[in-house]
């Protein structure tokens, strides 16, 4: 996780566009200024960042399904549940599956697990829109390459 730039996904472990599922890896840093306040003497990964991790993983799935031609923006978080604390250094597995591919929106169900145990889950809704500009599109493609998401051309050829 790159908390300083809000890029929370380290690597796409698996993506299946037929089943519309994705799995990603995200390791919580051992040190971060966030832990100075959350909480002093008892560092915990904030729940909002766990939600963001699920949103980013879902987002990569939606980007891939749309062949990098459209961008999902988080619109709604439902049924968010946090089952256990997440501490610095935790290696998280973030998974998401597409619940619905609507016209201009998408819905996913996402989960995070740590050492095989459920950490949290949520149902997420995204507005799916044209990229606001070419620079953002290129940045997304560059980040996708860094984290191991197949590029648009590879996705187009299955």
């Amino acid at each position: 996780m790159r908390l300083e730039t809000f890029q929370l996904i380290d690597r796409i472990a698996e993506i299946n566009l037929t089943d519309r599922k994705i799995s990603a890896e995200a390791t919580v840093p051992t040190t971060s200024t966030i832990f100075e306040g959350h909480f002093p003497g008892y560092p915990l990964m904030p729940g909002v960042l766990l939600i963001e991790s699920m949103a980013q993983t879902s987002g990569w799935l939606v980007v891939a399904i749309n062949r990098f031609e459209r961008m999902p923006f988080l619109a709604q978080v439902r049924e968010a549940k946090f089952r256990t604390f997440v501490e610095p250094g935790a290696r998280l597995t973030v998974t998401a599956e597409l619940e619905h591919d609507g016209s201009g929106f998408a819905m996913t169900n996402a989960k995070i697990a740590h050492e095989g145990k459920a950490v949290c889950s949520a149902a997420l809704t995204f507005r799916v829109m044209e990229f606001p500009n070419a620079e953002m599109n290129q940045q997304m493609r560059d980040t996708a390459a860094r984290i191991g998401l197949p590029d648009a051309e590879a996705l187009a050829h299955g």
Partner: protein
Amino acid sequence: MSSTFDTIANIISETCDIPRETIKPESHAINDLGIDSLDFLDIAFAIDKAFGIKLPLEQWTQEVNDGKATTDQYFVLENLSARIDDLVAAKGA
């Protein structure tokens, strides 16, 4: 089997917590029922699922923005029902 209008009225009632009896065929989802665009995504999801279709919300929005259609054509519920019936018929054709 319930009519298309009854099905979408029930969806709207459950999704947006609007009393079912206030939802009429002539009701405008936005202007009369106060449903905003985000809530309408939940409604669209439920309609898509219930009827096995994909409401073309982006196309409708574009037509309204371009002045080629009015929101009445898509968001007055009796009109929405007719659109859904058309989409269901097209799917089966």
